[in-house]
């Protein structure tokens, strides 16, 4: 059987290769090396959730009717008997209650969407905190950023399709936000809804965006994203033998074919389990869209919470100061624009531009393929945590009614607290994180210089007790000393010797200030000379107590070294 199969396989391979030259591609790809680390699977979770979304989405389109025509419900669901609803809502009920397995596909699809957006954001955080966005990957960061935005668009357009009262109120909020945009807001609203809200064309339009435009864009961008990953070769965590000029790992075929391929089935399985066990978006409890009813304690899908939270956080009046202005008869609604347009704009803009901002500060032009341990970039890590804390406060404020209910707190007090927290917590989070990171760096220094505590206490002849420290092995020491030690950029004077102003001085001085912000406080890695000095002073290495040094001088020297160490830091 073996030879026959082999013959057939080689025959097919030959046939295809003679017509496509695919052999070269297989040669290029199959033994390509990928480094191993659990955090590299976060992006895979996103990709596989997307594949699950495509698969389940195709089945959903077999049942869903994207129409706002009004019909009267006559299906099996007793609570909806005789209720007027759009065909979109009716077909959602039909899919859920009359198509065997339809509810399951709906729930798998919705859970996969939540997983997709969550995985993208966590993957993005991983890339951020390890510095994987640095040269040559800045463009791929932008591609990934755009994918993140697209995932929000995909989520929101899909969420609104069943035309239930919850998503309908969500759309009305979007309409209110759009109308707040100066000059063109009302016209954008008319353009989107085909007239006044809610109109009769929105569901078909959202449907096309949801099943064609947005997934098409995502597919294209995913292709670019993965192509660039292959082109750049994957980044790797620091460690022995890993440099900016090599990649250490295991081959795509068979190891990652099995691991990553297998992981797709794991992700699919887990999403299926969520869809099987946990009800999500039970639109039959909400009812069809009607502009009049609304219920308390209903939240949008999690990825929209931060905008909703910002809308709740922003006061209409601060003391006697209004945030909606009338200027020469034109209305400017800052109470809506700031939280729902300007805030996300600034946040996303900052995220998109971050690789360049940091590159201005470092002035480094080399390719970076070895990742940073987050502690070795204290300012970046601090910025990341500050942004996350900012985001989380908005998410919490977006759930403030649920928090208030759960913990029996006053809703208003919660909002007042978050209004202060949004200004206080992120800077505090930045400062604390930066300090923790630098503390960890100092810990690394100490470990390199003095070794690990061994728990073994030795009594010297003089009667002094000391704990013996075990020196680090080569691999661990390398991990703790091998990081970029970047000094702040020096700014050349504005005027040269002839007193002529240098062009571009302002830009240079901005970059120098940025550089100081990033690198003024820093903990430098231990140098071999420092290590030698520490060992000479008898710290750490246990062999030293047999050297026959006078114990007293040794102890003095140790103290001196420690003092010097303290002064340095």
């Amino acid at each position, binding site marked *: 059987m073996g030879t026959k199969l082999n013959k057939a396989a080689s025959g097919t391979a030959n046939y295809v290769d003679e017509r496509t030259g695919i052999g070269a591609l297989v040669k290029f790809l199959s033994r390509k090396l990928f480094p191993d680390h659990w955090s590299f699977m976060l992006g895979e979770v996103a990709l596989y959730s997307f594949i699950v979304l495509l698969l389940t989405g195709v089945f959903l389109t077999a049942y869903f009717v994207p129409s706002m025509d009004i019909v009267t419900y006559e299906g099996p669901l007793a609570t909806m008997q005789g209720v007027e609803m759009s065909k979109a809502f009716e077909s959602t009920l039909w899919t859920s209650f009359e198509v065997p397995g339809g509810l399951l596909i709906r729930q798998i699809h919705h859970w996969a969407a939540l997983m997709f957006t969550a995985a993208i954001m966590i993957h993005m955080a991983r890339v951020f905190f390890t510095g994987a966005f640095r040269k040559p990957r800045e463009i791929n960061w932008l591609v990934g950023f755009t994918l993140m935005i697209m995932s929000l668009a995909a989520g929101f357009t899909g969420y609104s399709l069943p035309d239930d009262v919850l998503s309908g109120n969500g759309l009305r*909020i979007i309409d209110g936000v759009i109308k707040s945009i100066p000059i063109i807001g009302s016209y954008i609203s008319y353009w989107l809804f085909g007239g006044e809200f*809610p109109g009769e064309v929105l569901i078909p339009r959202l449907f096309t965006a949801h099943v064609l435009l947005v997934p098409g864009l995502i597919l294209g961008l995913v292709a670019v994203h993965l192509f660039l990953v292959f082109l750049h070769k994957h980044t790797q965590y620091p460690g022995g033998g890993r440099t900016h000029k090599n990649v250490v790992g295991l081959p795509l075929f068979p190891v990652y074919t099995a691991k990553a391929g297998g992981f797709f089935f794991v992700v699919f399985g887990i999403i299926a389990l969520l869809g099987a066990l946990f009800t999500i978006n039970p639109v039959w409890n909400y009812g069809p869209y009607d502009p009049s009813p609304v219920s308390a304690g209903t939240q949008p899908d999690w990825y929209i919470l931060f905008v909703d939270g910002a809308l*709740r956080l922003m006061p*209409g009046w601060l003391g006697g100061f209004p945030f909606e202005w009338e200027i020469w008869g034109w209305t400017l609604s800052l109470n809506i624009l700031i939280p729902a347009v300007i805030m996300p704009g600034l946040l996303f803009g900052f995220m998109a531009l971050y690789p360049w901002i940091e590159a201005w500060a470092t002035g480094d032009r080399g390719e970076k393929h070895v990742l940073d341990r987050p502690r070795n970039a204290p300012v970046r890590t601090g910025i990341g945590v500050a942004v996350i804390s900012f985001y989380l406060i908005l998410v919490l404020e977006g759930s*403030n009614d649920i928090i208030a209910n759960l913990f029996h707190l006053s809703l208003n007090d919660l*909002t007042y607290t978050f209004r202060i927290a949004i200004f206080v917590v992120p800077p505090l989070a930045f400062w604390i994180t930066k300090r923790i990171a630098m503390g960890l760096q100092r810990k690394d220094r100490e470990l390199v210089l003095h070794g690990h505590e061994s728990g073994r206490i030795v009594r010297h002849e003089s009667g002094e007790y000391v704990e013996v420290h075990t020196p680090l092995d080569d691999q661990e020491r*390398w991990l703790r000393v091998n990081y970029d030690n970047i000094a702040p950029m020096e700014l050349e004077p504005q005027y040269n010797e002839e007193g002529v102003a240098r062009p571009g001085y302002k830009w240079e001085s901005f970059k120098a200030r940025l550089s100081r912000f990033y690198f003024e406080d820093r903990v430098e890695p231990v*140098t071999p000379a420092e290590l030698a000095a520490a060992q000479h002073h008898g710290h750490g290495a246990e062999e030293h107590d047999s050297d026959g040094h006078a114990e007293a001088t040794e102890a003095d020297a140790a103290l001196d070294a420690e003092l010097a160490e303290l002064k340095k830091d």
Partner: protein
Amino acid sequence: MSIDNHTEHVEFEDPGVPDHRPRKADVDDKADKRAERQTAFLFGLSIVGTLIAVVGYFAIDLGEDVESIQRFTMVLGLGIFLAMIGIGLGAIHWAKTLMRDHEMVEERHEMRSSDEAREGAIQDLKDGVVDSGLGGPKRRTLLKGSLITALAIAPLSVLVPQIGSMGGDWNVSKFRHTMWTAGTRLARDPDGTPIKASDVTIGSVFHVIPEGLNDLEHHLIEEKAKAVVLLIRLDPKDLNVQPGREDWSFDGIVAYSKICTHVGCPVALYEQQTHHLLCPCHQSTFDVANGAKVVFGPAKRPLPQLPIAVDDDGYIVAQRDFEEPVGPSFWERLQGDDSTAEEVDH
């Protein structure tokens, strides 16, 4: 922090890729066999899952109530879960125990193309420009200018008509009017029966639509989205009638737009004790006893008040339409034909 400069700037030496440590299955034949059995078991689990899903689909009755449908969903879903996770865990277990785990090293090449490649590319482009007739002695500004202009405006030939048609009649002044007119009776939402003043007891709240809304052939839902009103009766001594609106209420009965002036959610939660109306979306809170002015939250403007009266049959009717646009603010809210809009907005 400074580093002593007199010491040599020697760096630590890269110790190289750590030595490979063999796994159990690499050295112990029994462990190798065990790993193989475990992997096969996981693949077997997947086959069981597929059977559960397929057999369950045919064997279990979907039923008609929510519980039985959820039970069906659960069996099918657990089947898919097993079918998928069995393959996944099996493949990963195989890779981790039996496939190569001895790391390999590959060199990277700088992304930048070589100098020759760059020069070649630039030369090719230059040749191309010459071939096109643009690079020669003739500047051909007319050719370039006309092409750029044509390309820049060609999209308009599609976009202007298409986008132009997407916004309906673009008559954004519709935001300013609702279907309330003088004499329209206030009716219950959703059945549309008119409300008598005597039906409205102190402390009660009615969700209101204009009478006749349900008979609309077109744009019913758009009109409803603007016209919904809350009708509330307060003890007249609790009601602080706003100056200029002395005749807008009737014996403690007031009518306010239900659409939040923040971003347009229905303001549906009324607290009888405090006379506060709360929008559940973003928690703007309006004081009904004081002209529905904002007491908390992101809204800036009070809810618009609908002037009401009682007709000869004792039904509550609107005196006229709202005197300002209902719902969220928009740029041209105070513009246009509503001469009274400005005076109301204080």
